[in-house]
């Protein structure tokens, strides 16, 4: 306000006017504040309101539900799967997926000379191991046993694995590379069996169901807008790092819609894979049509098969069946795989130089009747490498590993 207004006899009237003006201004600023309030309330409340609670479904026993899953003959389906994995691995960024995949960039491949460009960016084993860490969105579509498609959605690009009849195509749109194999060769068939959908994961989990396991039906849930039963699978034995596995099974079709594995140590789920959208209609036929785009680099499976070592294909926790000297200790959930590397254990600071220190920093030193060793822990799988070169690994606690090592001595 201009200075002359504030002196002399006009004060009373001007002050009142000013107060009124200030009031009007305050009212105006209430509008953006109200907009923010409404937006915050909408963001907070809409998901809560949309969650219509657990559906009412007729009671069912665990046995009936297992039969329902087994009898489920869903062959046509399409949908979006959100998969989050938190194994508690140290975050090594790209190095991690390079090591896991055994593809280009891993120490073993680069040792073979031409390993640098031997693999293709579109190789399924390179891509799908990315799922081992972080959150990913997948799209799945299936039409019978011969036509399936899994796409890994990435920022501005997509990796698709398409199975159409005898052909298996991997297409990486970011690098415009294509990987091709045929199912008849066998290797292709194995590779597309990387468990990614809730159904695959459930089948893996239910393989382990025996008398060491408790299976119950605990209530219902809504997954991707469909009513589902919650099947809870829990190990009965002590010493397992698996807390429980919850599978939401579609009430109508018996298709597993959501799979959650919680560790015994509590906290966030180690694996959480569930449909966010699902449809049981026949997917568009063009979904499975694939011809390599012009100019794309096509890698045939046979070219790389020889270079790709066997490791890296295993899902975490699966015993490495083809390693020499492998022994399996225990049964059910507390199975421990053990083998003798024949070497002298971990490279120590003297032998391995910096690498030994680096690896050692991730593990904990343990002592027992067996001697000394290093335990590497993740939230699900623990591994004990003794100083005399024996390896014990399993989805069991550290104590169980030491006990197994002591017993084997």
């Amino acid at each position, binding site marked *: 306000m201009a200075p002359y207004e504030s002196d002399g006899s006009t004060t009373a009237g001007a002050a009142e006017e000013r107060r009124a003006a200030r009031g009007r201004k305050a009212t105006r600023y209430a509008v953006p504040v109200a907009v923010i309030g409404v*937006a915050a309330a909408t963001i907070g409340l809409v998901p809560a309101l949309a969650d219509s609670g657990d559906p009412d479904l007729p009671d069912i026993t665990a046995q009936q539900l297992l039969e329902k899953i087994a009898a489920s003959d869903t062959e046509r389906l399409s949908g979006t799967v959100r998969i989050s994995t938190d194994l508690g691995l140290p975050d090594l960024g790209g190095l991690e997926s390079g090591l896991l995949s055994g593809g280009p960039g891993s120490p073993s491949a680069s040792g073979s000379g031409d390993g640098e460009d031997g693999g293709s960016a579109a190789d399924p084993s390179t891509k799908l191991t990315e799922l081992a860490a972080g959150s990913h969105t997948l799209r799945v579509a299936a039409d019978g046993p011969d036509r399936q498609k899994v796409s890994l959605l990435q920022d501005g690009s*997509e990796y698709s694995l398409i199975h159409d009849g005898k052909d298996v195509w991997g297409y990486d749109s970011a690098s415009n590379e294509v990987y091709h194999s045929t199912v008849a060769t066998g290797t292709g068939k194995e590779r597309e069996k990387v468990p990614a959908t809730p159904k695959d994961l459930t089948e893996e989990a239910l393989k382990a169901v025996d008398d060491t396991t408790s299976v119950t039906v605990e209530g219902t849930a809504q997954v991707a807008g469909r009513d589902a039963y919650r099947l809870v699978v829990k190990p009965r034995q002590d010493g397992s790092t698996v807390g429980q596995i919850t599978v939401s099974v579609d009430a109508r079709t018996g298709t597993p819609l959501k799979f959650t594995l919680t560790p015994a140590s509590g906290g966030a789920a180690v694996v959480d894979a569930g449909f966010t959208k699902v449809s049981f209609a026949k997917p568009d036929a063009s979904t499975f049509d694939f011809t390599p785009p012009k100019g794309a680099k096509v890698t045939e499976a046979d070219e790389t098969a020889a270079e790709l070592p066997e490791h890296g294909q295993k899902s975490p926790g699966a015993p490495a069946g083809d390693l020499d000297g492998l022994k399996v200790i225990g049964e059910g959930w507390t199975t421990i795989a053990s083998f003798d590397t024949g070497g002298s254990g971990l490279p120590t600071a003297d032998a391995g130089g910096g690498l030994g220190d680096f690896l050692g920093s991730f593990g904990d030193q343990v002592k027992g009747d067996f001697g000394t060793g290093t335990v590497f822990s993740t939230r699900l799988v623990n591994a004990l490498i003794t100083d005399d070169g024996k390896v014990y690994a399993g989805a069991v606690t550290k104590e169980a590993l030491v006990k197994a090592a002591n017993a084997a001595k």
Partner: protein
Amino acid sequence: MSRAETGTATVPAGTGAAVRSPRALWTLGLLRSELSVTFRRWRTLALLGVLAAVPVLVGIAVKIETGDGAGAGGDAGGPAFISQITNNGLFLVFTALAATLPFFLPMAVGVVAGDAVAGESGAGTLRYLLVAPAGRTRLLLTKYAAVLAFCLAGTLVVAVSALAVGALLFPLGELTTISGTRISFAEGLLRALAIALVVAASLIGVAALGLFVSTLTGSGIAAMATTVGLLITVQILDQIPQLHALQPYFFSHYWLSFADLMREPVYWDDLMKNLGIQALYAAVFGSAAWARFTAKDITA
């Protein structure tokens, strides 16, 4: 603004006695003059020129890189879609938009939006604009409409320039979506248009933010610098993993979701989130700009 809207538009006290139809004409006239002022500025033309040059540079660079007959670089670096350009010139449109959206486009919008009110104020012309019986609300809406028109124009300039360069340097034809399915060239063009519109809509938030900043100060340069500074800050914060809980509310977080239009079937989730967040920013900063502009003392 349409005729119907003007009837209910908020008009500051004092002009209430004016007749309806002249008011509508006024609004149209105001918008027209605002648009011509914006687009006749040398600065605006220079910004559009820079935007048009980006696809040319990208196209020539890719052409030179792959001129010896080799395929596009196998590594996945660079903006999205860059590896497909050599096979289909239409992909240059997507690459150019992916390259300009994070910085060039919003910077240009920030310059135009930041200058909208503060520039007039700094040049001493704002009070003359307010002498006209248009009212502050309508003036602000017109300014915002002009900025949005610039968002659309800027995006289309990039897209059209990229399409022209792509058609000149590379083959056109059927294209492969990033999901691996094929679509015809006509459908590809439609998707390119849809992507350009989504990219233009992605700039709504920055435009509203710039307009609000512009009402805060009397200096056009200060408003532009603040808007562009905010843009850079938000982009940096969006890269910090520790802030992942906040990031979905940044206006730039879902910008690159326009690539989802190239999936088959289209993945709508992130696109919708992007449009929602832009609408939210427009509502919040638009109303804040309105509150500030209609309540402030205009001295210049």
